[in-house]
């Protein structure tokens, strides 16, 4: 294919008429501009949301560098056009474009879409439509791009099956290179077997899921009867991808520096991947096992390179539970030493509730202000925390906040979920008591009434590949009822109520997320119906319409015998075929079921990093193992040569 012409000239007059036009122009520092003809395989990487949300996404940033480092690959980015620009593009006939060279997305070989959340689904349909790429995989021809989904939502891609040519599970670094190589060989070999031939080559690897190669049948009551390959040689189950040596893949090295304002303005270094804490609600923790740490010296080098290549001043030490790195004390201390006296600030998102974290937080705030600390007990009562396996006692929590208040911190934010399995109104009201005790302890320890506790609550959404994949989701009215009762209880507390803030969202978007998380292929028409009736940007409260989703489920599921409640609030039996059972996250189904039974029985399970293996199945199934320190290594001192004339 000859190089397509840039769309920028056609786009420029439209940009003068829209909000935040800077998000569409590209040209940022560290963006990669390659010549079309000098490459053989061309990718578009899409995060299906607005630039301000999508550009900071770590996964997309990693793949952008990994792919562009291959000289025969060209990878450009595209994001959702906001409704104001989308309308003008349709009017003016300007298709979905990439940011680097403003090329039409439809001219590329692969569109790789990162679904961190299911609420991005309608945004892919909008982008494909704007691109002029047929919406359904079955309608695409040899010259249309392959549309491949990745990201955590793709652990159950079934609701998107009809729109995706393929989906990949797990870490993208190696599999994206493997896909690019297969596409390269297929193109240079004269496209043997056409599009189907290419998809077969991908499917035969066992690491790329091609939904059209599997047939789904249903039993009369609506449950799935079977999911079976419909082509010879296609594996019965598709494995997730696991990157086993993070030190070998120190990405991103030089992430794109946005001109536009984005949700995160920091350099993030992933300090480890995976988590074996075993929180039963947490899909990320379950599917990303085993724990694989990055070494302290590599972390230090990534941060130095990252800050110098971007000019950013904030560093995030990223992981699912950052304080669990085996050398986190040294990592934070040595980084704090290195950047003492500079304007570089360090942050440690996702920390546990224990006093050790206060030491870390103190270290990271050496020259800054001690404003607020965040902890996530997740469940309001000890009983409920046993159910979800969040091993935090009330004493732990109070000891931790007491230490924090004693060392100058003045506000604490606590994260909880509402609608957890076995939860009662009493469990949720327990949050008010806990918050009141936090304030009480804070006032005592600090000797001031200037203490604040903010409670932030989200509705729980059961996810695939977790022990709660069988659970019934609490309907929106139940969640809302409990949240209002909690709000009233906090308001009625005369002693502490005014020091407690409460932030929550209503339960309705969570129900839609639940439908998309545990849905099957029959949910595809619902998504399409929503998009056709104008639904996009479902992650934005100003765009999300619950009524539109309800109307779409009524219309698109009519005659199937199943409905919104069937997908969300219904508890599943052990023997029910789940839509994602043919997708292998490494977890043994028997273990997940046993852990679900343990949850109901309020039995906890320990972290396998520090106690015995409990046979979740991942290491045996995928031939992987836990990789952790301590390594005893240290940060390599920076040799800085500043060429100031």
């Amino acid at each position, binding site marked *: 294919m000859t190089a397509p012409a840039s769309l*920028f000239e056609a786009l*420029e*007059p439209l*940009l*003068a*008429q829209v909000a*935040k*036009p*800077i998000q*569409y*122009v*590209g*040209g*940022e*520092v560290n963006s990669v501009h390659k010549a079309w003809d000098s490459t053989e395989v061309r990718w578009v990487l899409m995060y299906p949301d607005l630039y301000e949300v999508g550009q900071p996404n770590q996964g997309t940033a990693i793949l952008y560098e990994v792919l562009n480092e291959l000289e025969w690959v060209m990878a450009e980015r595209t994001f959702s056009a906001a409704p104001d620009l989308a309308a003008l593009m349709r009017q003016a006939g300007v298709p979905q474009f990439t940011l680097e060279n403003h090329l039409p997305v439809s001219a590329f070989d692969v569109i790789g879409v990162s679904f961190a959340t299911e609420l991005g689904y309608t945004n892919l349909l909008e982008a494909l439509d704007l691109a002029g790429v047929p919406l359904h995989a079955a309608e695409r021809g040899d010259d249309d791009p392959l549309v491949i989904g990745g990201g955590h939502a793709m652990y159950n891609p079934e609701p998107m099956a009809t729109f995706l040519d393929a989906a990949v599970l797990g870490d993208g670094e190696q599999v994206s290179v493997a896909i690019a190589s297969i596409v390269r060989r297929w193109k240079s070999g004269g496209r043997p077997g056409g599009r189907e031939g290419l998809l077969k080559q991908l499917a035969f690897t066992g690491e790329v899921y091609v939904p059209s190669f599997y047939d789904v049948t249903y039993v009369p009551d609506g449950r799935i009867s079977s999911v079976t390959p419909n082509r010879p040689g296609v594996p019965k189950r598709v494995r997730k991808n696991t990157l086993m040596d993070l030190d070998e893949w120190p990405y991103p090295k030089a992430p794109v*520096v946005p*001109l*536009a*304002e984005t949700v995160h*303005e920091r350099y993030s270094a992933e300090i480890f991947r995976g988590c074996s804490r075993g929180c039963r609600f947490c899909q990320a923790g379950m599917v990303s096992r085993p724990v694989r740490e990055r070494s302290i010296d590599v972390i230090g080098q990534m941060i130095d390179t990252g*800050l*110098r*290549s*971007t*000019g*950013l*001043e904030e560093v995030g030490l990223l992981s699912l539970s950052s304080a669990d790195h085996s050398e986190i004390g040294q990592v934070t201390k040595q980084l704090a030493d290195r950047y003492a006296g500079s*304007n570089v600030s360090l942050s440690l998102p996702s920390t546990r509730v224990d006093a050790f974290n206060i030491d870390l937080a103190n270290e990271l705030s050496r*020259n*800054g*202000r*001690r*404003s607020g600390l965040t902890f996530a007990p997740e469940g309001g009562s000890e009983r409920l925390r046993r159910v979800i396996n969040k091993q935090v006692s009330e004493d732990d929590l109070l000891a931790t906040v007491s230490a924090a208040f004693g060392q*100058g*911190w*003045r506000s604490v934010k606590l994260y909880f979920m509402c609608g957890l399995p076995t939860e009662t109104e009493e469990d949720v009201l327990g949050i008010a008591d806990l918050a009141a005790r936090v304030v009480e302890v804070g006032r005592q320890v600090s000797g*001031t009434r*200037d203490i604040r506790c903010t409670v932030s609550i989200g509705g729980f959404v059961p996810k695939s590949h977790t022990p709660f994949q069988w659970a019934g989701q609490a309907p929106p009215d139940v969640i809302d009822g409990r949240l209002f009762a909690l709000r009233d209880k906090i308001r009625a507390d005369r002693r502490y109520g005014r020091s407690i803030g409460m932030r929550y969202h209503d339960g309705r978007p969570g129900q839609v997320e639940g439908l998309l998380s545990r849905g099957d292929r029959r949910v595809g028409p619902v998504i399409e119906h929503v998009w056709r009736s104008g639904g996009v940007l479902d992650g934005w409260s100003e765009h999300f319409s619950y009524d539109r989703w309800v109307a779409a489920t009524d219309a698109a599921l009519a005659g199937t015998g199943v409905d919104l409640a069937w997908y969300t609030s219904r508890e599943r039996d052990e023997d029910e075929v789940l839509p994602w059972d043919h997708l292998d996250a490494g977890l043994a189904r028997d273990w997940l079921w046993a852990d679900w039974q343990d949850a109901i029985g309020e039995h906890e399970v320990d972290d396998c990093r520090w106690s015995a293996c409990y046979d979740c199945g991942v290491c045996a199934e995928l031939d992987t193992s836990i990789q952790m320190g301590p390594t005893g290594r240290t940060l390599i001192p920076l040799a800085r040569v*500043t060429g*100031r*004339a």
Partner: protein
Amino acid sequence: MGTRQPPQQQAPPVQKLRLEYSKRGRARFASHRDFARALERAIRRAEIPMAYSSGFSPHPRISYPNAAPTGAASECEYVELGLALVVEPDWVQRVLGEALPLGLDIIRVVPAEGPSLTERLQASRWLIDVVGVPRPVMEQAVASLMGAEHVLVQRQTKAGVREFDVRPAVLALSVVDDRTLDFTGRHEVPLVRADDVVSALAGLVPAFVLARPALVTRLAQGPWLGDSIGDPLVG
């Protein structure tokens, strides 16, 4: 924490540099805030020894007088940097130019002298692309505006619609070619922008209808010398 003392006072700048830069092509769509972020990051990448403000969150000492609006291209934007060390202006021009994103280019760097930039940036000259308006209509509208004593326009602001007179700020306005106007305006409060002049022309002559929103480019900014704009970095 409330009782904690702010960090020690930062030293005042030892050198001030004035930069002239352009905003072209895709970078025209950068807002003032977008540019400020890009410049501050470029300064850190280039390791320019900035002086910082005091307080809990010190900021590099940079002043941004009279930035062009989002969507406007410009050949002549100005900022002033306060530095912690004395450096060569040419070095700053080179390293900063390399560190800035596409479309933002440093044209000149000179040591700050004399009156402040804000005092010197008295007027701007703009080219306005009014594609779709017939030439006679352009001529008629320009003559009509220049002949009037007051021309009121309305602009949507955060506080609602406000009405003001654009005419006193118009120092010169002429037709360059079949789609371009040349406008020189004095910086007043409220600032009369090229967009406001387009609204004024449309208000005066109903046939003054653009095929698409006007694209504007600032050509010069500086002291008003009575018949032209002077160089704000000299004298």
